[in-house]
């Protein structure tokens, strides 16, 4: 087992920085997710760690040792690919045994360890089948077994679940968690699915345009995203740029005026006056009531009037898109009650639920010229 230190790593393809100055540390035995939209450089980062591509700047250390001079076949890493990349002309057994044979492990031990690995990933007895005779989920498990059987220092996974259907994906998520806990292998996991990242990780590294936009444990990143971009990617639906007002108030809140509008929202936070911020609130934290309803308590601050523009039913609740004349754009809110389109509603944004986020400086990664 080893930790992985990625420091200021950059990779350029022609005139495009696929990855620019990426740094993070994956501690021994931890599960780190690289999370970000398509094309943000997640796969490239993984390829640089694995050694499939040469880095242009920076350094990767595995177990404290720089690996830049080591070719991939000397790095002792397990890699699981998005398309599994099983060897099509080899049986499941031969696929899993491949790494052991390259290491000249004796026959008897090879058979034992292959059986062990196949057992670990919960694969039924399919050792003599060829990959094309397996289901997607089974191929996925073979790929995992093949990567784990060599007892890698680090396990790298590139969107391993994205080719599975929703049910299998949820199941494999638990499996992956169990396998990682049982083996204790340091894992770096690439995904564009925030839910996967949140459920699996000890640490989430959010990437944007080839750079790291924020890195934190799931709970921290969920509750206090580092920036508006991170919040956006972690499903904070409502984001409005704003400016902190002059004086802090007695109740421990600050008044923040929403840019390009008349709205002033009270937020339970402290910021120096005049700071540029982004206000963020999740849809489920917005309370929705019928317009004109005098609720249980007095409206207090942060009450906004609006009309329902559109709604979608998601099973557990209804998601509303509400036009608020006081805000520069529509607000997304989740409620159990039904309101028809065109109904006037009253929204309440609790001061404690609003996050004040750092606006994003334009990033310098993918898509920028060197």
């Amino acid at each position: 087992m080893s930790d992985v230190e990625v420091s200021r790593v950059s990779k350029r393809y022609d005139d495009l920085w696929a990855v620019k100055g990426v740094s993070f540390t994956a501690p021994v035995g931890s599960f780190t997710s690289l999370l970000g939209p398509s094309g943000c450089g997640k796969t490239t980062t993984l390829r640089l760690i694995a050694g499939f591509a040469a880095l242009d700047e920076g350094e990767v250390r595995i177990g404290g040792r720089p690996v830049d001079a080591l070719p991939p076949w000397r790095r002792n890493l397990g890699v699981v690919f998005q398309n599994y990349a099983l060897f099509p002309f080899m049986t499941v057994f031969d696929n899993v045994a491949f790494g052991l044979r390259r290491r000249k492990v004796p026959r008897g031990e090879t058979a034992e360890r292959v059986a062990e690995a196949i057992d670990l990933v919960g694969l039924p007895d399919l050792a003599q089948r060829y990959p094309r005779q397996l289901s997607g989920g089974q191929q996925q498990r073979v790929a995992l077994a093949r990567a784990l059987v060599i007892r890698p220092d680090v396990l790298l996974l590139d969107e391993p679940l994205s080719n599975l259907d929703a049910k299998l994906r949820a199941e494999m998520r638990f499996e992956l968690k169990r396998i990682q806990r049982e083996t204790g292998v340091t894992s770096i996991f690439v995904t564009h699915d925030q839910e996967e990242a949140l459920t699996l990780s000890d640490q989430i590294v959010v990437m944007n345009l080839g750079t790291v936009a924020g890195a934190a444990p799931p709970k921290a990143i969920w509750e206090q995203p580092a920036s508006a971009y991170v919040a956006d990617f972690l499903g904070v639906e409502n984001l409005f740029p704003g400016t902190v007002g002059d004086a802090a108030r007695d109740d421990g809140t600050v008044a923040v005026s929403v840019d390009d509008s008349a709205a002033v929202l009270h937020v339970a936070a402290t910021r120096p006056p005049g700071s540029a911020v982004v206000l963020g609130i999740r849809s489920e934290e917005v309370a929705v009531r019928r317009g004109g309803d005098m609720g249980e308590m007095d409206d207090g601050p942060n009450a906004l009037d609006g009309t329902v523009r559109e709604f979608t039913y998601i099973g557990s609740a209804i998601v509303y898109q509400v036009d608020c004349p006081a805000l520069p754009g529509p607000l997304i809110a989740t409620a159990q009650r039904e309101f028809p389109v065109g109904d006037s509603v009253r929204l309440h944004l609790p001061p404690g639920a609003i996050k004040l986020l750092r606006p994003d400086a334009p990033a310098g990664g993918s898509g920028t010229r060197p």
Partner: protein
Amino acid sequence: MTAGRAWGGGARFPASLATPVLLAFAVFIVVPCALLLVKGLEPTSAAGDWPDFTNVLGLFDSKIGQQALNRTIRVSLIVTVICLVAGYPVALFIARCAPRWRGLLLAVVIFPFLISAVVRAFGWTVLLGDSGLANKGLIALGLIDRPIALVQNEIGIIVGETHLLMPYMILSLLAVLQRIDPNLRHAAESLGASPVSVFWRIVIPLTLPGLLTGTLLVFSLAMTAFATPFLLGGGRTPILTTLLYDYAFTLFDWRLAASIGIVLLILGILFVTIHRFVSSRGMRSYG
């Protein structure tokens, strides 16, 4: 296989379009073969019955016939091996090239197709002649003292046919090489396979289909080539096809010529059968 169905119109639509060509092919296969058999197995004496194998078997009795047969097989095998061994690295290189270079290199490979075999053979005659570039080069390098015979013998035939057939091998290999998922190579590398190991254990098995197609093409084309061996081999190194030409147009012995045709046909069928057997075993795991 399923191409017809994939279009949604059943197999009828492509079948109706394919019929004329397939029919023509069938006619052009069956009729000449029948004529060949009729002529080649014609009785040698007035009293004999039709399937008379005297000529075909007699071919192996004559020294020149036997030599031609052996040379045909030997040359075809050597050319196939050279094309494979020399063509594989070329195909590998082109497949790994950046796309913009790939097109250019492909054009270089295909270019010989644009020149007639006759013109090419004359080119080789000049290059390989006693005062040609090849001999001069070898002398300059100090490898030989005086010019050696490179044309009007088997070397000439092998050089000419290799040049003629190399593109078939390269294109066959390239077709499969370009389809290989680079992640398979990376997967093998991450599991501890060095590039040499990756080549033998991953790339070669994955290119087996192209390798088999290429060898089949090159061997059968080498065996049936005429202009190149005729012009570069000279009169003293006949192979089956040039011997056939001699019998037909110098001796006007059509019966003997046809019997050589039968031997070539048998060789072809034999090779295809062996090839199919090997492929079906080698490709079992490809499904």
